[in-house]
């Protein structure tokens, strides 16, 4: 038997040597991806893998510059606003065509925006949800912040808004608002973006093939308007879902690049001359949230005690390859960050004192759940039930939380040390965790986080706390912060807006409404023969700048 197997292996290996007499293989960059794209029409997706793919072949009106969140021209050469930021005018780049030969012009831009906005548009398909449009522009149809998009001439587009919107340049640079070929969308209908069709855009790499859960292939397109600085002729996104297998693949040279190395792998990378590591600047936050239906958490002394009991620095050192302890919701790399907010302390002794002051000299292991008002808002004074104190850990890996279970256990141990005995729970799985969170049913403490999409603080603290009089997750409502953030949205200059975001973050930190823990940097592992990689906090990293030596 072993002889037969040996023979089979030998024959198979020999067969692989029979290379067809074909032309030289293209310079191929293999990206080891942790997952499969969901769709390749950026307007209808929200996952990072899909964006990693489409970013190589599609472009928005503006782009993010290198390793920053600053915007630079892309398909638009210029974007200007009127005085109150309610009318934005984009001058489009001339001489650009889509990969199918369709000319890029104002009509193409109008076509894309109208398909996203109008729910009765024939290209606003029932089967897809244009979530980011809804999210960034406040809704569809008449609810949309954009009231009209007009083609002023062939290469000028005017966006008319119902309200001031200072974050417009950053929003228009987001991959979700990449301009796709109207011809391709009309031709393929709701199959556009699926494995059979892929994307048709204006970028340097055109779609070739997508074998689901296996790979996506893109080839260099010779009709690209811009400059391709690297030497990559083909990009293959190879799906390798298992973390250990993906790391083994880069060690073996089977892939050139991967995201999310673990702290244990860091030492191996440092000792392997074939690999090097870069860090993606952090644009995220990990936090510990309170559910305000729990009577004990409505007491500022208890919240402060919990803040003092958790050892943020230890979490940052243990569970991340690289992370900094968070003093505010907003990460330091984003304008609007407030460096004057003091770093949270780790002081378990003081935590015990505060708990005693709050009436819990021995801590507690059970909490009281308050009854909701009739309209579903929080809360009456009536205690509905008493339940065990529970800490919900995230049952999923995120850039802001690489080890949800480990973090939960560490927090539980720290809390136990000050007399707070928590039960650990993961809510079931990610879907049910999110569902419980949305319905206010994570009755206890829970970890969650956020990764920014646009590089504007309105998409950070603004996203969570600027819906006034509407309690967000965990029934948390902070009108004073909301007022600041809402006002910041309407101002047009960074100089005017920045103090408001800083003030909002200072208030959030003082109130201990949600406890910011850390801002994690995503470790990127790269083969040594690869040059030109530019990590971007938003993850818009472009292979057109990369070379393989």
């Amino acid at each position, binding site marked *: 038997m072993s002889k037969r197997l040996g023979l089979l292996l030998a024959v198979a290996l020999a*067969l692989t040597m029979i290379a067809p007499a074909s032309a030289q293989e293209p310079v191929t960059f293999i990206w080891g991806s942790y997952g499969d794209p969901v769709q390749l029409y950026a307007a209808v997706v929200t996952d990072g893998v899909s964006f990693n793919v489409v970013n190589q072949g599609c472009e928005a009106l503006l782009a993010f510059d290198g390793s920053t969140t600053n915007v630079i021209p892309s398909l638009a050469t210029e974007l200007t606003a009127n005085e109150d930021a309610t009318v934005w005018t984009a001058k489009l780049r001339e001489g650009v065509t889509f990969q199918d030969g369709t000319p890029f012009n104002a009509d193409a831009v109008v076509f894309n925006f109208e398909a996203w906005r109008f729910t009765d548009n024939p290209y606003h398909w029932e089967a897809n949800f244009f979530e980011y449009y809804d999210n960034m522009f406040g809704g569809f149809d008449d609810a949309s912040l954009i009231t009209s998009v007009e083609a002023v001439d062939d290469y000028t587009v005017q966006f008319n808004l119902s309200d001031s919107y200072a974050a417009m340049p950053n929003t228009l640079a987001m991959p979700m608002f990449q301009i796709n070929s109207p011809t391709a969308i009309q031709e393929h209908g709701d199959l556009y973006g699926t494995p059979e069709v892929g994307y048709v855009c204006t970028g340097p790499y055109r779609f070739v093939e997508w074998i689901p*859960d296996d790979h996506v292939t893109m080839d260099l397109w010779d009709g690209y308007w811009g400059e391709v600085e690297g030497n990559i002729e083909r990009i293959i996104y190879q799906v390798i879902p298992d973390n250990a*297998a993906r790391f083994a693949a880069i060690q073996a040279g089977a892939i050139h690049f991967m995201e999310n190395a673990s702290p244990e792998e860091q030492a191996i990378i440092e000792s392997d001359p074939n690999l090097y590591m870069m860090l993606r600047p952090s644009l995220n936050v990990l936090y510990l949230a309170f559910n305000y239906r729990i009577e004990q958490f409505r007491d500022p002394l208890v919240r402060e005690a919990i803040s003092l009991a958790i050892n943020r620095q230890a979490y940052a050192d243990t569970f991340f390859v690289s992370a900094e302890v968070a003093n505010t919701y907003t990460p330091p790399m984003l304008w609007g960050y407030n460096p004057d907010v003091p770093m949270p302390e780790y002081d378990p002794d003081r935590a015990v004192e505060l708990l005693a002051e709050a009436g819990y000299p021995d801590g507690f292991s059970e909490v009281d759940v308050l009854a909701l008002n009739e309209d579903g808002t929080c809360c009456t004074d009536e205690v509905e039930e008493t339940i065990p104190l529970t800490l919900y850990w995230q049952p999923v890996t995120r850039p802001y939380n690489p080890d949800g279970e480990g973090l939960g256990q560490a927090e539980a141990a720290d809390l136990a040390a000050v007399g707070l005995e928590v039960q650990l729970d993961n809510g079931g799985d990610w879907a049910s965790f999110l569902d419980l969170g949305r319905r206010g049913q994570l009755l206890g403490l829970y970890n969650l986080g956020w990764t920014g999409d646009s590089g504007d603080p309105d998409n950070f603290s603004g996203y969570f706390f600027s819906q006034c009089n509407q309690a967000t997750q965990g029934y948390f409502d902070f009108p004073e912060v909301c007022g600041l953030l809402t006002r910041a949205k309407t101002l047009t200059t960074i100089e005017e807006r920045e103090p408001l975001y800083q003030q909002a973050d200072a208030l959030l930190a003082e109130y201990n409404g949600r406890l910011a823990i850390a801002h994690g940097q995503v470790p990127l592992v790269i083969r040594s023969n690869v040059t030109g990689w530019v990590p971007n906090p938003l993850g818009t990293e472009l292979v057109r700048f990369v070379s393989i030596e």
Partner: protein
Amino acid sequence: MARYIIRRTLETLPVLFGASVLVFLIVHLIPGGPESVLLGERVSEENVRQLRERLGLDRPLPEQYLIYMSNVLQGDLGNSIAGNVPIINELRQRFPATVELTICALAIAVGVGVPLGVVSAVRRGSWIDTGTMIGAMVGISMPIFWLGLLLLWIFGVQLNLLPFIGRLSPNVVIETRTGLHTVDAILSGNWSALGDAIIHLILPAITLSTVPIALIARITRSAMLEVLHMDYVRTARAKGLHERVVIREHALRNALLPVVTVIGLSLGGLLSGAVLTETIFSWPGMGRWLFNSIQGRDYPIVQSITLIVTFLFVGVNLVVDLSYAWLNPRIRYE
């Protein structure tokens, strides 16, 4: 026989119906929905309401079920919720990947497991028997992910001898006819691609075959031990037949019935996909697809795969039952 086959085939209909109702209920009753996964951290009540309405999830469950089943009966498995991808298209790619891996793994399992079981039984009490049974115990007990990663590390990384990602190397292209890369490579005369497809199969197929090898070896051994003491085996020996002929023609053939049952069950199980093996070796098969779809609450995919797997299981069982008559002509179907 024909009547039996028709009857068994008709019997599959209530099984399929029952399975479809059960799975439909289970996937809809577990907490969380596709809208939670799709919206992620930015989930809000209004977003959820809009998305549920758009996906038709706001309708009563019986109505959703009827819509789904009427589409299935018309040959339309629907589209995935997450990417709006036609399920039938993805199935065309995933199912051959699973079939190819299953056939390879099962061929290894039968090729190794049956001879081991026979030798163990014939040499009962010897070191071969003891070694085989210990090996079988280890094979059943060993975590698949551990074995897979170990093989990957040794043969893929340290020795750099075998590939361990996906079904083909980058830039290797095979004209798709059946979806089975080995078959397609042969049909198109692409020998280098054939070799590439085979060496990609080796590590995942070996990993996947360990449990079936152990099961088959143990069942073969116990079945052989039973028949080796039968009168007809003694008679065959008394007639002066060569021991090899006695074992192969008289003992093994009669011992095969339970072995075939185990092979059939293993085949059915393997065809529904092997999540761990597929994940470790980045194999784009049915198991990982089902697993990811359950996590993402992609109801149409979960329901479609379950229906197909149920159908396969029933089909494999039927084939196994029919093979009994071939193995033992005394069995008759009424």
